[in-house]
């Protein structure tokens, strides 16, 4: 019973981490309808950049994550521009190619990482990695608590941005009715570009959390396609609160299965959940369609 309790608590912490990792996708896929299957690949790339800074220059991983955030923002702006000009403009057939494009990009990133860093796992060092805290009979790794705190902060920050700031509301308006936004004199493409930039920038800190929580390897993006899309679809596309709730559900489900059935079933959980949600309630838990 205690084991189960520990699993649930760990699951909740892990879940919040999954929320931070998925929240960019909630914006890019949930709100902007970009079929961004390369999102996890960008995430892993960010975590390798964090590793590079941590290993080579002794920079704290979270700080490293913050440092690469502006770079990622600019990269996101450029990436959206390319995507928009090549695919979204050209109509229905382009949707197929858009998906194939991101798939190709994801693979390219994966291979480039392998060629530069090799296939072995990499991890970072920091003062909070390696220790655990005791809560009664439970031992919770400190790095999970750090990840939980940062992730929750990040999620709340982004959710607040989208609901309270002018730009954030513009983004949500564009997601709902692009034509109306255009009629109001704003440029929807610029707004979407900005949103994609933010969604990519968030991956800086998210990537840092990724490598803090566990070692990374180049093929990790495949597992995270399942996790991030599972969270975003379960949440109901574009709902930030939903992202947090869905992520926690996934985190708890994964840890419980892990504890009770062992690691060999773990990779399939997010994907199985995703298939289940698609089958039963494709509009997600909090979505409306």
């Amino acid at each position, binding site marked *: 019973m205690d084991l189960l309790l520990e699993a649930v608590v760990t699951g909740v912490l892990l879940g919040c981490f999954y929320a931070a990792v998925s929240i960019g996708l909630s914006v890019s896929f949930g709100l902007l309808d970009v079929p961004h299957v390369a999102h996890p690949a960008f995430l892993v790339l960010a975590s390798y950049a964090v590793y590079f800074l941590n290993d080579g220059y002794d920079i704290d991983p979270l700080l490293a994550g913050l440092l690469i955030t502006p770079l990622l923002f600019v990269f996101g702006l450029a990436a959206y521009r390319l995507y928009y000009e090549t695919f979204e403009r050209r*109509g*229905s*057939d382009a949707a197929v190619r858009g998906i194939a494009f991101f798939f190709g990009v994801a693979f390219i990133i994966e291979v480039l990482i392998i060629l530069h860093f090799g296939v072995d796992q990499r991890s970072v060092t920091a003062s909070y990695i390696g220790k655990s805290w005791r809560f009664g009979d439970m031992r919770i790794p400190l790095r999970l608590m750090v990840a939980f705190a940062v992730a929750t902060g990040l999620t709340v920050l982004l959710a607040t941005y989208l609901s309270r700031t002018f730009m954030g509301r513009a983004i949500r308006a564009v997601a709902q009715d692009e034509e109306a936004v255009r009629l109001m004199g704003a440029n929807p493409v610029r707004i979407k570009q900005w949103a994609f930039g933010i969604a990519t920038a968030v991956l800086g800190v998210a990537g840092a959390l990724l490598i803090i929580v566990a070692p990374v390897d180049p093929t990790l993006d495949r597992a995270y396609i399942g996790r991030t899309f599972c969270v975003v679809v379960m949440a109901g596309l574009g709902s930030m609160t939903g992202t947090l709730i869905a992520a926690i559900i996934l985190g708890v489900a994964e840890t419980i299965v892990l504890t009770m059935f062992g690691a060999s079933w773990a990779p399939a959980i997010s994907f199985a959940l995703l298939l289940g949600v698609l089958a039963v309630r494709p509009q997600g838990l909090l979505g*409306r369609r």
Partner: protein
Amino acid sequence: MSSAPASEFPLLKIEALTKRFGGFTALDNVSVDIRPGERFGLIGPNGSGKTTLINCISGAFRTEPSTVMFNGEDITRLPPHVRTRRGIARSFQIPRPFRSMTVIENLMVAVDFTSGHLSLSAEDHRDRSMAILQHMGLAAKANARVTGLSQVELRKMELARAMATRPKLLISDEAMAGLSGSEVDEVLDLLLKLASESITIIMIEHIMQAVMRFSERIMCLEAGRIIAIGKPSDVMANARVQEAYLGT
């Protein structure tokens, strides 16, 4: 004016149709009977629910628990392609041609799937499609790619493709929008010709002159509700209708 058909049985019957999207009510308690062979005009300001109504009739939107009756049959649960085979055809407000095909190929899709493709040969399908194009004045463009057509040609092709499904009811959704004066007359004459062949037509338009000339009856929607229905002159004289179009 044309003579009213002998049958009194409505071709299309909609009863108390209410359509909501989340908190937004697009159609509110709309009921209407359309007679066979009727020329029916549908007007209303933007956002009043005209296209939503068309989507409900053609099957793009679900309407449960309200029912849609067509030709004596309850078609509420039928998907769009089955309704098309039953005889309901529509054009789209912004034309949606099959871009990778030529004009005649666009029509052949319609002929293929609504005339028992297993019974007729490919040549017969092509002949039929060609005949329709001639009827609609597009024969010269039969082998042209859709992407090279002018606006009025696109609208005519949209109607031709709808006609290729051999409908009993044709719904024309703002086929004249954005066209020049003579182009409007072209499309209007085309629709009148089709009407004279006993096809029931629902015309949605903003060009009042055209609607007046065409319709035997007009229905005006506003914010999802019917605010007037009846003879064109009566509806146009209706104060609420005038307010809806000119007011605020």
